[in-house]
């Protein structure tokens, strides 16, 4: 397949997936909250995303008079573009990826952090108090989640000895899925991933209770639509990175057990999508279940709990590579030390809170 065709296929499927994950989210949330959800357009609401797209495209794009015109116009484009670029290095199936570069994982992280600037530009250039507060919170969010996230990924990189997404998937044929060897890193990554996608419980930057809509309050029409699609593209990206790093990417389960060889009939893209969709369901589930946290609480969580946890994980992984201990001992050590840290942290917090 030529490069251009691959790009076309990936972008086409991605757009379809983004459109239908919004419908799935609304239906699932409705199910969780004993509502009906959108079920009028088409059979059971299957044409709802189409109706939404037509609505967004045909609405007028209103710009506030005081807005910073250039930045106001570029912000949604920056958001959307840098949400789409990382999909270039994702191995979707055994031999299907647009490109495989030797810094794949770093590339994804770098593009994600540039994408955040779109959010901040949008909030700042609207010249509205709510948007401005939203973008300030976006900055606070970003400086808190990024460090533990990268530290958690480092454990996986030590095992796979490569930053290339394809090589990371291949390394998991040798070691088994990294979620079994790096449970701490997996949990840290999932938590930071929710923060990266700016969703509940960490969506304080579009806190509709106090900030109307946060950074995109002043946006309407397709400009709002671009922000919205970028959020869902980011959500897919986080789920995909979690799948590639921790859940074996496109590999089928039980690769090393000959008894399950019959599973290899099913194409690898199926395993990849089922893992990604399961993680997406997890994120929707979180949204339906959890309340929002304050942003100082998020900063405390990231810097005081998750960062030390990820450093513990990194140190243990380095020791494992140095001494080559038994995998079960390693697993017990990492879970044990993680729980021990949580206990110590809890103790210090109670000490700090208790009146002297």
């Amino acid at each position, binding site marked *: 397949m030529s490069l251009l065709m691959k790009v076309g296929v990936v972008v086409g499927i991605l757009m379809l997936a983004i459109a239908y994950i919004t419908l799935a989210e609304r239906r699932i949330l409705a199910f969780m909250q004993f509502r009906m959800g959108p079920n009028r357009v088409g059979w059971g609401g299957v044409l709802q995303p189409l109706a939404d797209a037509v609505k967004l495209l045909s609405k007028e794009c209103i710009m506030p008079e005081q807005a910073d015109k250039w930045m106001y116009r570029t912000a949604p484009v920056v958001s959307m573009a840098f949400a789409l670029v990382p999909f270039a290095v994702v191995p979707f199936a055994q031999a299907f990826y647009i490109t495989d570069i030797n810094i794949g994982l*770093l590339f994804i992280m770098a593009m994600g952090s540039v994408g955040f600037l779109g959010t901040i530009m949008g909030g700042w250039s609207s010249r509205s108090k709510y948007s401005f507060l939203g973008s*300030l919170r976006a900055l606070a969010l970003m400086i808190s989640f990024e460090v533990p996230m990268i530290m958690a990924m480092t454990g996986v990189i030590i095992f796979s000895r490569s930053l290339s997404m394809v090589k990371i998937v291949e390394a998991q044929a040798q070691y088994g899925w990294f979620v079994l060897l790096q449970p701490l890193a997996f949990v840290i990554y999932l938590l930071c991933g929710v923060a990266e996608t700016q969703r509940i419980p960490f969506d304080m930057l579009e806190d509709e209770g106090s900030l109307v809509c946060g950074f995109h309050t002043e946006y309407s029409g397709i400009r709002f639509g671009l922000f919205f699609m970028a959020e869902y593209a980011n959500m897919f990206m986080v789920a995909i990175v979690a799948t590639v790093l921790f859940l074996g990417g496109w590999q089928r389960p039980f690769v090393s057990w000959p008894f399950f060889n019959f599973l290899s009939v099913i194409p690898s893209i199926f395993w990849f999508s089922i893992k990604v969709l399961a993680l997406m369901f997890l994120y929707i589930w979180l949204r339906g279940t959890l309340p929002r946290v304050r942003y100082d609480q998020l900063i405390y969580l990231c810097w005081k709990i998750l960062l030390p946890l990820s450093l513990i994980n990194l140190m243990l992984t380095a020791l494992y590579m140095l001494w080559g201990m038994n995998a079960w001992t390693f697993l017990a050590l990492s879970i044990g030390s993680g729980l021990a840290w949580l206990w110590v942290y809890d103790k210090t917090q109670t000490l700090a809170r208790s009146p002297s």
Partner: protein
Amino acid sequence: MAFLILAAIAVASAVMVVSVKNVVHSAFSLVVTLFSVGCLFILLRAEFLAATQILIYVGSIMILIIFALMLIDIKEANRQRRFHHQSKFVIGIGIILVIEIILFIIPRSEFIESPEKLIARTAEAGGNIQIIGQSLFTDFIFAFEFASIIILVAIVAAIFLGKQPTSIIKKSSVIKDSS
């Protein structure tokens, strides 16, 4: 060709950083500059450097700078003069730097002579990331650790400076309350 486009963007946005009146605009121009310099690193086959450049400078340092800029009064900052008498001094240093680059750095540059040879040599040694990792943790371990300690000291100092006023305020407010 790609080099020329990226270099033009980098230089133009770097000029915007110092010439634009609005501080947030100049911060975002700096983002463009740093991003295009990162892209230039990709053209030089230094992918790891490019990714870290974008991740660290655009993703972290610029975020912190914008964070600080958003908290200051922009109207007050816009009233201040853009250039003052130091500009002549700066132009002098700039001219010296340009002469230095033309006279000393360009003639000695190994890369400008044979990019293919350098790329082949990097690939032979196991790629960019491996070389950087090995040289950082073996040959240059002292410099690496030393830089880390300097940064750590700076962070501790910044926290100390940032914390001090609030503790003084707290003490004084306590005294006021008791009186």
